[in-house]
C-alpha cells in the first residue's frame, strides 16, 4: 500500500467576507510539505476566490489571489472548479485568473492548473479521496 494519500481541500466560501478562504490556502501551503497528493475544489461561493482583477487596497486586507499562482511551485496543480457554480453566479472560465504549472514529466511544459468540471464529476472527485478538508 502506498503511503501517499489523496487530499482534497474543498473551498465553498467567497474570499474576503470570512477568513475561511485565506485559512484554506495557508493550510494547503503548509500541507504541501508533506508530499501527499493534493487537489483543490472550488464550488458554490468558493469559485469567487479565483476571479481575476482582485484589488483589496481599499478594504485594508491582503489580496491573496496572486498566491494561487504560486501553487505550482508547491506541486499543487489540480484546481477543480465546478461549472454549475460558475454559471449560477453568472461567471465563466474567462472571469477566472490564469493559473499555470510546469509539468516536470513533460519537459517543464506550461499547463493550466484550473480544470472546469461538472457537478457530477465533482461528486466523483470527492468520492475518490482519502481525506477531505472543508473550508
Amino acid at each position, binding site marked *: 500500500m502506498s503511503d501517499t494519500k489523496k487530499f482534497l481541500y474543498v473551498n465553498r466560501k467567497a474570499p474576503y467576507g470570512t477568513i*475561511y478562504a485565506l485559512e484554506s490556502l495557508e493550510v494547503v501551503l503548509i500541507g504541501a510539505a508533506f508530499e501527499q497528493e493534493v487537489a483543490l475544489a472550488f464550488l458554490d461561493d468558493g469559485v469567487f476566490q479565483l476571479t481575476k482583477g482582485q484589488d483589496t487596497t481599499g478594504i485594508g486586507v491582503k489580496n491573496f489571489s496572486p498566491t494561487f499562482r504560486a501553487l505550482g511551485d508547491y506541486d499543487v496543480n489540480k484546481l477543480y472548479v465546478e461549472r454549475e457554480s460558475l454559471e449560477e453566479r453568472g461567471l465563466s472560465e474567462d472571469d477566472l485568473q490564469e493559473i499555470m504549472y510546469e509539468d516536470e514529466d513533460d519537459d517543464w511544459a506550461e499547463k493550466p492548473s484550473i480544470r472546469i468540471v461538472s457537478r457530477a464529476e465533482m461528486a466523483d472527485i470527492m468520492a475518490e479521496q*482519502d481525506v477531505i478538508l472543508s473550508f
Partner: protein
Amino acid sequence: MSTLHTVNKSPFETQTLLSCLNHCKDGDAVLLIEDGIYGGLAGTGLSEAIRQSASRVKIYVLNEDVKARGIPAERLMEEVTGVGYDGFVDLVTEHDRTQSWL
C-alpha cells in the same frame, strides 16, 4: 466506498444542505448537526426536496442538537433517523471518509 457528510447550517440560511445533497453519491449518509438539524423538519418549504434525496442517501439528525433546540421528535420527517453521539461515532467508522459542509 461511501462518505459521511455532516451539515451544521440551517438550510433556511445557507445553500449548504442543498449543495451537499447535490454532491452525494448513492449510499452516502448525511448527518445534520447543530443548526443543520432544522433541515430535518417536516412540512417546510424544503422538506420535499430533502425527502427526494432521502431515497438515495440516509439522513440522520443528532438527537442532542434537536433536543437542545426544543424540536419534538414528531416534527421531524419520517425519513430522518435520530442518533446520539455514540451513533455519530458509529457513522464515522462505517464510512470511508467524512466530509464536513461548513
